[in-house]
């Protein structure tokens, strides 16, 4: 558990008298973290996940919501997610790293959402996924406007 970068010896010394050695160690670790993140950014430049296509979206939705039939599927214009309709539910994928986060909410909430600057903001009401923001050219979809 804890103590990944500091020594328990130091931890055992009287608190809150944080000693200089531990602080220096922490600072070096923080610099190392920044360097590793920078390296990851450099090494993965131009190698992000490809834009979400329909086949991939359907495969993800089938894994995340097994057995749910899709009545419609709308991909985000920037390929970073999608909205699908299944009966009265909206199934939503949003890009996270090289994968996706999936959530479902009532379809009515999604169809009522409006476009702002080409982005559809859907509140998901979940601490781990507060909202989905999807680039859409038009909303609600024409085929459902009737």
């Amino acid at each position, binding site marked *: *558990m*804890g*103590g*990944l*970068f*500091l*020594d*328990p*010896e*130091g*931890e*055992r010394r009287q*608190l809150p008298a*944080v000693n200089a050695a*531990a602080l220096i*160690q*922490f600072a070096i*670790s*923080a610099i*190392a*973290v920044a*360097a*590793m*993140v920078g*390296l*990851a*950014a450099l*090494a*993965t430049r131009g190698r*992000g996940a490809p834009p979400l296509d329909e086949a991939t979206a359907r495969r993800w939705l089938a*894994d995340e919501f*097994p*057995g749910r*039939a899709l009545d419609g599927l709308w991909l985000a214009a920037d390929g970073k997610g999608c909205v699908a309709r299944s009966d009265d539910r909206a199934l939503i994928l*949003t890009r*996270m*790293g*090289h*994968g*996706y*986060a*999936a*959530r479902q909410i009532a379809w009515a909430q999604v169809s009522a959402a409006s476009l702002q600057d080409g982005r559809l903001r859907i509140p*998901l009401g*979940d*601490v*781990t*996924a*507060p909202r*989905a923001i999807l680039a859409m050219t038009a909303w609600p979809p024409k085929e459902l406007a009737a």
Partner: protein
Amino acid sequence: MKTFDPVTLATPFFIITVILEIVLARFGKLKADYETADTAVSLTMGLISSLAGVITAGASFAAAVWIYQHRLFTIPMTAVWAWALVFFAEDLTYYWFHRLSHERRIWWAAHVNHHSSQHYNLSTALRQTWTGGVAGTWALWLPLSFLGFPPAMVAIEKGVSLVYQYWIHTEAIRRLPRPIEAVFNTPSHHRVHHARNPRYLDRNYAGILIVWDRMFGTFQPELDEEAPRYGLVHNLGTFNIVRVAFHEWIGIAQDIARSPRHILGWLFGAPGWSPDGSRDTSAKLKAEWAARQTAPPRAERDAA
């Protein structure tokens, strides 16, 4: 005997190997999937967890020292047999700590952080909780001090286990020779542990020895026909580190506020437990998955 911290000693090795994994993957020399935001969250979780550890380490170590003063036996820290014994005792303790951390929501709230990446690489190993001390699972190691293992010896062995578990967080190593896979926790076994595929959920709790999972019925080998998909049953939709660190605690608080009379279930039920069973627990997901293996998919049924 002079004590030391294996984790501190290993930290330069952690840094060098993460760098190597990133660089070698970049040039196609090994398999590793890094993503910048994900790596930043994992490493920052590790960095801050070392600070969070400072706050509770004093209290937990003091508890161990107090228990040790009332010990049953006196086990010498200088004897080889004592180290052999503490190796097995600590590893068994780790197995149950880890299993409890997955099976009860209050402890999952702390451990979930280690599992919330959809990636699996060496940086994932450093994705450590900030709230382990608060969750109190360190108490599980107190019986070792009561038996008579010096608290420093237990602390060193815990560190050895953590360092061991570092290198298994990689996709670069596929399978090791059979005798090793049979006895030790390996990259293959631990990939299963980090997977969200229903058949892989809540399996392979091992620290160093996989034999505990084989003994207690929680072992699942990695199958060639089913590649692990990493992360949580409901993956995070944010890289906000405060949400990443505390989301399950917030979830528990929200549930208790909504329905206080179910407080025991919210705290000590399985992760995903709810009074009406409407949410997903691993047991439910496993059962649904098993049912799908024997029943035809809905589309085929509807057509028939």
